[in-house]
């Protein structure tokens, strides 16, 4: 049988715009190209602005994980101004990031992932579902559809909790550099405790059992969609007056080897991306031949790496499963449960008092790198400033790592590797199988695509 090229586009139920082109031969995928088809360029927008604009402006990179960018930009500014973070600020910030992460994971599981496995009602927005591999009993299916709609209020409650402190979301206001501008008063704390307890019950009673149900009905997906097994995390939920101590450890996991990451080993490559180099500047070039994505290939020590909840759970020893589409989904749900418990603990540790914020007036450094894990994996912001003005701002997102297109060594990124070699059981199963594997990575293409000033290699040893 001859080779067949198929364009899978649009890949719906994710954040941003994604097209995936595959080559099929004898019922198997022999090549995959995952292309982010949206370019916005926040890095260019940051150039020339006041550095304190970073927290609010970079949140606009992404809607579903806005506080991920707010958090890293906040840490970056803490570094440039050399702030001392009060303890209450550390708790508050982690509560807020955790709430956004819970919102993200719950929405990803129910709104984005569920229709890959569950037959949705024949009405908008679920028309033409085309689910040819449905394995749930009518009763189980009905229960999960019901949970889809129940998750609406629960994910909303996660954002409500965040807003009690953050003013609004997406794009919250109070988590800024030097701390948090809102007072953790007793009434706010008890309001948030009520909200998180409701989220916690839902996660325990619905999300976790629902994940287990899907995992057992579709257990072959524990062997489908694996990557080469290189995982990376920058560590998550940072404490300490200088954001120096992540609660969940960072790590580079390759095979059985676990080591500490060093940002100087990160590099980017534009071989397959719609960018060209012009006078040391990378500029977008949407007609570049053979390119297929606005996402750049990112490597650590010359190799592509997978990141996200599975990477974090493996690196921290919280999960002992394997490396597949279903492991990714499973690890994300287990992480969701762990995070709800952390938020309850942190809310109880908050001491009611005035706004925990101390901002110094002027930056004391000209260059800083901030890196931490957020919902989808390792996120990095770096900035070079002159006075208080941005000369260069750089963002490397988790989606760029996971959705790396082919680099100059024709090495594929994790998603492309996960798709390659997959067997498609029948012609009407192509979208279903591809969709399940792709969504297990929780793609966020709005995050994936920006432009940078190519001369800036990351400098300075970053302690994780």
């Amino acid at each position, binding site marked *: 049988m001859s080779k067949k090229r198929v364009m899978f586009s649009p890949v719906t139920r994710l954040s941003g715009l994604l097209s995936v082109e595959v080559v099929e031969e004898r019922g198997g995928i022999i090549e995959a190209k995952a292309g982010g088809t949206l370019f916005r360029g926040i890095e260019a927008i940051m150039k020339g602005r006041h550095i304190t604009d970073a927290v609010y402006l970079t949140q606009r990179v992404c809607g579903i994980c806005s506080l991920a960018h707010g958090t890293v930009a906040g840490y970056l500014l803490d570094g440039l101004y050399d702030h001392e973070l009060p303890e209450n600020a550390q708790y508050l910030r982690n509560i807020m990031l955790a709430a956004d992460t819970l919102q993200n994971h719950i929405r990803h599981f129910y*709104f984005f992932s569920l229709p890959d496995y569950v037959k949705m009602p024949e009405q908008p927005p679920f028309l033409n579902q085309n689910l040819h591999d449905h394995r749930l009993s009518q009763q189980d299916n009905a229960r999960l559809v019901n949970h889809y709609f129940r998750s609406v209020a629960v994910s909303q409650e996660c954002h409500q909790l965040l807003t009690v402190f953050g003013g609004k979301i997406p794009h919250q206001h109070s988590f800024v550099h030097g701390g948090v501008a809102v007072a953790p008063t007793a009434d706010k704390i008890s309001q948030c405790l009520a909200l998180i307890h409701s989220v916690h019950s839902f996660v325990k009673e619905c999300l976790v059992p629902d994940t287990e149900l899907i995992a057992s009905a579709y257990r072959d997906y524990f062997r489908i969609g694996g990557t080469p097994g290189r995982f990376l995390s920058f560590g998550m939920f940072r404490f300490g007056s200088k954001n120096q101590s992540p609660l969940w450890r960072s790590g580079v996991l390759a095979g059985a080897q676990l080591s500490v990451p060093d940002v100087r080993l990160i590099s980017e490559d534009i071989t397959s991306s719609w960018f060209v180099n012009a006078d040391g500047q990378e500029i977008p070039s949407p007609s570049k031949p053979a390119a297929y994505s606005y996402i750049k290939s990112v490597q650590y020590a010359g190799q592509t790496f997978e990141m996200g909840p599975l990477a974090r759970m493996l690196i921290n020893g919280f999960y002992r499963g394997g490396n597949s589409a279903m492991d990714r989904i499973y690890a994300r749900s287990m992480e969701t449960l762990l995070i709800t418990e952390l938020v309850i603990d942190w809310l109880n540790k908050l001491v009611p008092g005035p706004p925990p914020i101390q901002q110094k007036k002027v930056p004391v450094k000209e260059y800083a790198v901030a890196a931490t894990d957020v919902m989808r994996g390792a996120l990095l912001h770096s900035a070079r400033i002159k006075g208080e003005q941005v000369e260069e701002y750089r963002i490397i997102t988790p989606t760029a790592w996971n959705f790396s297109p082919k680099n100059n060594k024709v090495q594929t990124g994790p998603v492309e590797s996960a798709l390659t070699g997959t067997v498609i059981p029948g012609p009407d199963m192509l979208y279903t199988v591809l969709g399940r594997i792709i969504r297990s990575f929780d793609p966020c293409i709005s995050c994936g695509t920006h432009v940078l000033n190519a001369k800036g290699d990351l400098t300075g040893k970053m302690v994780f």
Partner: protein
Amino acid sequence: MQKEEFNYRCRELSAGLDFQLTKYVLDTVQEHRKSKSAGKLPVIWIETSDSGDNNIAFMNTTYPYLGQVLSGLIDLLYSNTFMAAQGKDALNILEQAATELRGKFTLVVEGAVPLKDNGLYTVIARTENYSLTARDVLTWLGPLAKYVVALGTCASFGGVSAARPNVAGSVGVRDVLKREVINVSGCPVNPDWFVGTLAHLLLFGAPELDSLNRPALFYGFTVHRHCQRRSYFDQGHFAEKLGDLECMFSLGCVGPRTGADCPYRQWINHVNWPVRANTPCIGCTNEDFPDGSSPFFTPLPEKNPPPHEEQPAASKGGAKGE
């Protein structure tokens, strides 16, 4: 129910502490649909160049919650975020809806539209032979829609996607289509503004618009007018640092020239808004956001817009001041 009465009730209920407005909207819609045996509002939602924050904001709607909006108010036919269909199955729905519901559907555009390089900076879908850009989709569907709603500030005016240096040459929907576009701006939109607008379209057609083509119901007055800290402003008591309880004008607040009802409507089940979180309003509903609000923490008179742009007048923004 008369349009005037509906608008009156909306205004009145917005000011109430128990926040009955959206709940009221849903009941009214149900009653209307029953009495007229009318269908739901058919919606085609196209995501273009933005961060996807407006669809997340939409998921945060309360009374009616998202599930109620989908079951009782709109038929969300095409939506990259929610639809179960994928690949060509999804595109088929788009083509079918555009043909069968020609002149009847509401086109919601979430995001700006890049024009440079044939619009290739935002591709909605690709086939083996061609790329369907945001601009292609808009010029195709725009003339066929009954209403066009630009959702969020990027779709309305360009927003962050068009912020300087605007590498992709992005513009708002109004600069692509030669027809009326209802702008529901905000970065992101407050779900009440959007769901309220959809309900208005279903019940009474296009709402009354301000000078920036936004529903006057939500954007008609400035943030400053209803701000809880207005008495501090009037007496000249200004915050010295973030976290202070006085007026945030000194820390960059753009409330005086921003049309929005945040001080009383608030966000995410109406629990808080930026000034109550001890930070300045950054004017995210404005025509010149973010460039006209940046640097965010610099007082309004000292904000320095790029040299090629004029300083917007204090009254700009389509809202009544005071």
